[in-house]
């Protein structure tokens, strides 16, 4: 087990290192000189050169890369060209919105996706199952921003029940009630993802239902209800719970569009704006953090999977 954990961690670190090179190269392929973005078109050549030297942008790319990695390892992701603030600070500012939005969205996904998926599986082949599966597929086919815009129209503009945009921190005035700002965005973001979890839960339940031990349980005369809860659901949820990890990681970056629709101060919107502003350090930093988050969750899911299900081979 320990060897397995070490091997998987090593592989994750290798992927992270490769990803950091890819990020670095990609960022430097973006056309447009950040120096001119900072100083404007009227800057004198001397000013440009001075700033270039100060930021270390005049050195060769490999040197710049190792310089960047060295700083990252010390917890320094650089300084935003646009805000003149540390990138870590900017990420932390957006982190509350992004993490809370993802968490609230996860709650919807779990509450809607799993029970409905179980219902569809237990009614396999009936019109209930076909209807629910059809609705799930429909939800997965809708652009999130379209849903978001109409939710704003109905619940914010017309009925006036909920705010249409922005999100003041729960630590500011209003406290926990500020979460109402995240209600419409989280539902918007949850719709397609809940649909995927629904389909996964259903498929996973149907797979497990074919297992020998389920047939044995039934033939022993255990009540059908108990077979479903004890034998099928428990095993089927293993695959579903591991999908929660990836879903959560994906939500942070998938929220780009939703954050734009609802004008939320999250990490996703920050990346899009930084891309448009050519703010290299912020783009680099945020994408590195998101990739890192994805790899960590991936690793944890893999390891916990082997803890939860001893049948899974340790290669």
């Amino acid at each position: 087990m320990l060897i397995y954990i070490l091997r998987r961690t090593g592989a994750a670190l290798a992927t992270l290192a490769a990803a950091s090179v890819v990020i670095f190269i990609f960022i430097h392929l973006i056309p447009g000189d950040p120096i001119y973005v900072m100083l404007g078109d009227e800057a004198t050549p001397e000013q440009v050169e001075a700033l270039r030297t100060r930021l270390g942008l005049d050195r060769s790319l490999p040197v710049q890369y190792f310089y960047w990695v060295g700083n990252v390892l010390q917890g320094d992701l650089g300084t935003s060209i646009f805000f003149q603030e540390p990138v870590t600070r900017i990420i932390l500012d957006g982190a509350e919105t992004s993490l809370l939005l993802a968490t609230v969205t996860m709650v919807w996904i779990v509450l809607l996706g799993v029970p409905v998926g179980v219902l569809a599986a237990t009614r396999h082949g009936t019109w209930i199952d076909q209807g629910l599966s059809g609705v799930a597929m429909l939800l997965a086919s809708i652009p999130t921003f379209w849903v978001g815009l109409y939710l704003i129209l109905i619940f914010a503009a017309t009925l006036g029940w909920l705010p249409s945009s922005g999100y003041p921190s729960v630590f500011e005035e209003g406290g926990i009630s500020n979460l109402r700002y995240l209600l419409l965005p989280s539902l918007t973001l949850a719709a397609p993802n809940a649909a995927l979890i629904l389909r996964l839960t259903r498929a996973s339940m149907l797979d497990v239902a074919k297992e020998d031990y389920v047939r044995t349980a039934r033939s022993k005369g255990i009540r059908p209800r108990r077979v479903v809860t004890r034998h099928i659901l428990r095993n089927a949820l293993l695959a579903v719970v591991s999908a929660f990890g990836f879903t959560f990681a994906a939500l942070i970056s998938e929220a780009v569009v939703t954050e734009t629709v609802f004008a939320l101060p999250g990490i996703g919107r920050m990346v899009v704006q930084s891309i448009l502003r050519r703010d290299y350090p912020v783009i680099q930093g945020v994408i590195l953090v998101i990739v890192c988050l994805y790899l960590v969750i991936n690793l944890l899911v893999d390891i916990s999977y082997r803890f939860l299900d001893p049948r899974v081979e340790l290669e």
Partner: protein
Amino acid sequence: MTRSLRPFFDFFASRPVALIGLVYLVVIIVAALGANALVPYPPEQIEPVNRLSPPSWEHWFGTDHFGRDTFSRVIYGSRLALLIGVGVVSFALATGVPIGILSALFPRLGRVLMRMVDVMMAFPSLLMALGLIVILGQSVVNAILAIGMVYLTTTARITYGVSLRLREETYVEAASSMGASTLWVIRKHMLPNMISPLLVQASFVFAFAQLGAASLDFLGLGAPPEIPSWGNMLAESRIYITRAPWLLFYPGLMIVLTAFSLNLVGDALRDRMDPRFREMLGNKGR
């Protein structure tokens, strides 16, 4: 009707919902090809007097903030939708399939290539597409490339999985042991057996390409704004949602119906497929 297409049609006849999806797709293709003849107004024709008018006999889907006919623009939009879909699927297949097959046949090369695919998969797909657009510049072709890169990875993974299984088949081993060249094995044994899983993958990629392109358009980084695409129509009309809510309805509905139809067709095709390959094709596509 040729004999080989017969089972295909029989199959769809037994799946009425998938048949509806298929019929819708045919309608969209006809609309895209015959857009010039079908639309009542040129898509660029401006009628400032009639701006933001609700649906009527003259303008079935209403008009936008320039007084352009939404119905005509929606019909023209189907051209770009098909172009994006066909482009992304072709790119994903043309790159992902060779990577997958070669990785399965040459394990040493495969370890490197699949590792690279893993690294690419660690990047959030929408952010990767956005980044590529910024590097390549904003155009329809670059939107196709940016979205196609995202599905290159999933297509390569699936092809790799399928190829690994096919490689173990007796007939492949037999062919190889009788001295058949690698190219022969790929052409005569691997590719023909891959058609149905790849067809399923293609329909899901086509569906998700629609949603990806719409997101790029919405963020202002997709098709150039002068092109009438469904996503651009939504992005432009966004600020008029309270004054003219119908403006956003029809382009959005077209995106939903197109993606939904493709998903229905893909799902039906998957159910009919060899069960050994079925598990590899999740409807995750992202």
